[in-house]
């Protein structure tokens, strides 16, 4: 179809052009980034604490000032003017450059931290050294590349969170939700783990040390959570350690199912989660870039559910491999002591087997109607694979998952999913594939919560009778690539496993058609919803299948 040559028609013009405030604030923010860049190239700043403060403040103030310049003088309401004209947000040159820069950053972060100045021996150099003062202030330890990343991540969520709130100040759902993600990132992901590190070796932990633990980051998003070294750390850190281990199990098996039942997976994905937090704030400018085609949806379903199967198998193998050892060694008063696990490998495998069978059975018996044919086949296929492999493992038990060593499976997962997918592609590709690539195609947590959201939750997006005019704003701004309009124009509620409940479809709807709500299960998924305003007899006829 024809498109206009916007870039020619609108050069330097509103709504594409930046006003003076936006230009100056961009300059300020870039100055902050430039300081970090100089540090990367080993410019040795004399007073690191001061320069780090200047840099972070410049970035933070730059973003907040930019927001004020962009939205402050305008009346409250939807602020999407020029989104598809701006190079950064419409796959233009700036978008690609930003994508490449971010991707490069992630590659260095994950695979070449020494370029950032990480030193195994002796003091840090480069940008990591710049962050040492802050790290020492919080946890007492020198910084790592992850501390640098975590700090920048938090500053980004904080600053762009303020931008998002400014942009959506007319919408209290968005305001409250954003305050929530900013809080969980700052407190749970950033500060608490650093403070927890201060407890290491203290009496409250019985002299033990806690593993790094972002409390809201549950398995399987935190795929390492039940690894042997962490379990040992938990078990040797007194009641607090044991409590945290129990909390880790409860979060995925008890707390999250209850909350997802009551509120849908949004309670996590767009209210609490750190990945979601960054996507909703710093990534908000890119939400319209997600692919809405049916073909993308088909790819999404297979990829994301394969990741769940992958992580499940890997975790079973990892847990089983240390359970098989029967226990672990600790130093007590200078003597080595063997502590036995109370859970045997056999019990664990049989238990897992039973749990998976139970879930599969429940779905097939009670929810089969709600799954499409290919989803049923997929479910059966995955189930058979998991059981076969678990069974194989049980009877064979050589530390292999089928033909592969547990350790190498773990490594592969960490590389492919943990680093490449969630980091490099998931965030690096924001300006190219949209801000929820990871959440949509890769996150196993999102898949599990989504599975429950689709089948057993009170959450839905209600469609308001016959008011839809098929304009397409909802679909365009859905970061998860859901074709919201396809449902809304039929008068059907939107009950999709991928929906993270960000609420933006409802916000951008010009006719008040969409409402996120938690209501009774009965009638939640109703593909025969009437398009109101019609003659009732006609609706009966139209709904005949």
């Amino acid at each position, binding site marked *: 179809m024809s498109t*206009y040559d916007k870039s020619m028609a609108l050069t330097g013009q509103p709504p594409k052009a930046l006003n003076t405030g936006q230009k100056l604030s961009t300059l300020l923010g870039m100055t902050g980034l430039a300081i970090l860049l100089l540090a990367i190239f080993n410019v040795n700043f004399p007073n690191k604490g001061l320069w780090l403060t200047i840099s972070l403040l410049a970035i933070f103030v730059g973003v907040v000032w930019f927001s004020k310049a962009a939205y402050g003088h305008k009346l409250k309401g939807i602020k999407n003017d020029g989104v598809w004209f701006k190079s950064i947000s419409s796959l233009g040159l700036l978008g690609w450059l930003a994508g490449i820069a971010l991707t490069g950053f992630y590659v260095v972060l994950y695979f070449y931290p020494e370029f950032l100045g990480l030193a195994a021996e002796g003091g840090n150099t480069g940008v990591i050294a710049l962050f040492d003062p802050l790290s020492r202030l919080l946890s007492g330890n020198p910084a790592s590349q992850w501390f640098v990343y975590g700090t920048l991540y938090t500053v980004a969520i904080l600053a762009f969170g303020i931008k998002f709130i400014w942009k959506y100040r007319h919408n209290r759902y968005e305001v409250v939700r954003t305050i929530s993600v900013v809080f969980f990132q700052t407190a749970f992901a950033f500060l608490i783990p650093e403070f927890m590190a201060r407890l290491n070796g203290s009496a409250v932990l019985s002299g033990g040390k806690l593993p790094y633990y972002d409390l809201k980051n549950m398995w399987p998003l935190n795929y390492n959570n039940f690894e042997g070294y962490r379990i040992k750390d938990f078990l040797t850190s007194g009641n607090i350690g044991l409590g945290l281990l129990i909390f880790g199990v409860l979060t995925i098996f008890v707390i999250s199912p209850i909350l997802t039942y009551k509120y849908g997976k949004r309670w996590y994905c767009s209210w609490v989660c750190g990945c979601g937090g960054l996507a909703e704030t710093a990534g908000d400018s890119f939400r319209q870039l997600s692919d809405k085609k049916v073909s993308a949806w088909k790819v999404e379903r297979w990829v994301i559910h394969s990741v769940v199967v992958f992580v499940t198998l890997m975790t079973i193998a990892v847990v089983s491999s240390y359970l098989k050892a029967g226990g672990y060694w600790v130093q007590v008063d200078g003597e080595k002591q063997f502590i036995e696990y109370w859970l045997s490998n056999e019990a664990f495998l049989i238990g897992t087997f039973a749990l998976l069978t139970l879930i599969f059975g429940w779905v097939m018996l009670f929810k089969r109607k709600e799954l499409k044919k290919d989803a049923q086949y997929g479910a059966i296929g995955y189930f058979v694979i998991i059981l076969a492999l678990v069974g194989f493992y049980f009877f064979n038990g050589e530390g292999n998952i089928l033909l592969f060593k547990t350790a190498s499976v773990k490594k592969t997962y960490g590389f492919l999913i943990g680093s490449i997918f969630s980091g490099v592609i998931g965030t690096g590709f924001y300006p190219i594939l949209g801000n929820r690539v990871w959440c949509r195609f890769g996150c196993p947590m999102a898949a599990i919560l989504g599975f429950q959201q689709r089948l057993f939750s009170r959450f839905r997006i209600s469609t308001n009778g016959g008011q839809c005019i*098929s304009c397409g704003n909802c679909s365009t701004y859905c970061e998860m690539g859901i074709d919201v309009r396809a449902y809304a124009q039929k008068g059907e509620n939107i009950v999709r496993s991928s929906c993270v409940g960000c609420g933006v479809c409802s916000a951008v709807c010009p006719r008040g058609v969409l409402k996120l709500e938690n209501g009774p299960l009965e009638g939640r998924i109703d593909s025969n919803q009437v398009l109101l305003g019609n003659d009732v007899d006609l609706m009966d006829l139209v709904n005949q299948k």
Partner: protein
Amino acid sequence: MEHIVIIGNGIAGVSAARHLRKLSDKKISIVSAETDYFFSRTALMYVYMGHMKFEHTQPYENWFWKKNRINLVKGFVNQVDHANKKLILQDAPEIAYDKLIIATGSKPNKFGWPGQDLKGVQGLYSKQDLDALEANAPNKDVCNRAVIVGGGLIGIELAEMLRSRDIPVTFLVRESSFWNGVLPSGESNMINEHILEHHIDLRLETNLVEIISDENGRAKAVTTDKGDTIECNVVGLTAGVSPNVDFLKESGIELGRGVKVNRFLETNIEDIYAIGDCAEQHEPIGNRRPIEAVWYTGRMMGETVAQTICGNRIEYKPGHWFNSAKFLDVEYQTYGWVFAKPPAKKEFEQHFHWRHATEKICITVAYHKDTKKFLGINTFGIRMRHEIFDRWLTEERGVDHVVEYLKDANFDPEFYKHYEAEILAQYNTEFGTHLQPKKKSWKRIFGKASATV
């Protein structure tokens, strides 16, 4: 195989095609000169504003049509030859049909203003109008000012569009207040204020006299009946629309302002039907106008005519009236009938109006002054649940019931402020009643009609 040909690929024609396909295996063709694929006309404004690309306004992916065996023909129909059951197209081969559905929509009104056909003068209805606007008003340097003539829904949309590119806009409105032929005065006044807030130069009770041409045949200014001359580069004519039926003048198909149809959407010629904006009912249905240029009615007529053509001849029977729009930042919804002034507003119709002290939020509830029967509601800045109002209208609830149970009808996003208590407090003061607001109840909302008692 019977060949059903539809002229027009808007919501009415496409709804008809989709439902014909659902119900039958007939051969279906859609002819359009406007675009290759169906798009949402109401979304054109967002393309100019940069909220969406044009592709985003297309509700179905391009493979949809082939998959559903709906044959798309690009071409302009010059003539309908009903004696030989064929269409004569400009620059394209003739098309033979067994049954014909006319769904050609509307065109912007022009009232014979001097200069109305100059360059830079345009309406806003079609994809071509959008393209023209992109050429006429790409930015504020090329277009130093635009004048919009006609204070209705399209006029305010056009103003919003131009303002998104910082183009100064003068808005000529014939009436004493914006859209006050439809909106009661409280609401109309609130929108006046909102228009001014957006730095739009609103001129009420002002008519266009003439559009003045420059030496190249391009509009350079307009004069008004107030004696003002306003320099401008673009003139938007948005004084309503009328059926796009000129090509049928010699066809023998009975025309009024639109294509005359009976309740079965049949024209005077056998096997020819008309639906959507271009259809004109012989007799108005209820309080409706004989021509309804509304998205939803186009869709409903499409669904209805598909039934009839597939052997289940049924009348077009629209349910309770509803509509919605957005005035700049203020959303508007209406359910049932709220009339602004006589003659539409009958002597028995009375209004209860509530407006927020500072925000652009208000409602107007119409009721029968003797029986207190609820007639309709307009809401601004509060979303309402269609299903609940549709039910209340069917059940012929009283106005007391509506204000008492208003929480059931609220459709605003979660965490929004609620105004039901404030509304009810004012209602109690005005009517001397002591009603208490009822808590929202899922049981009532999703229950059957009887559960609401």
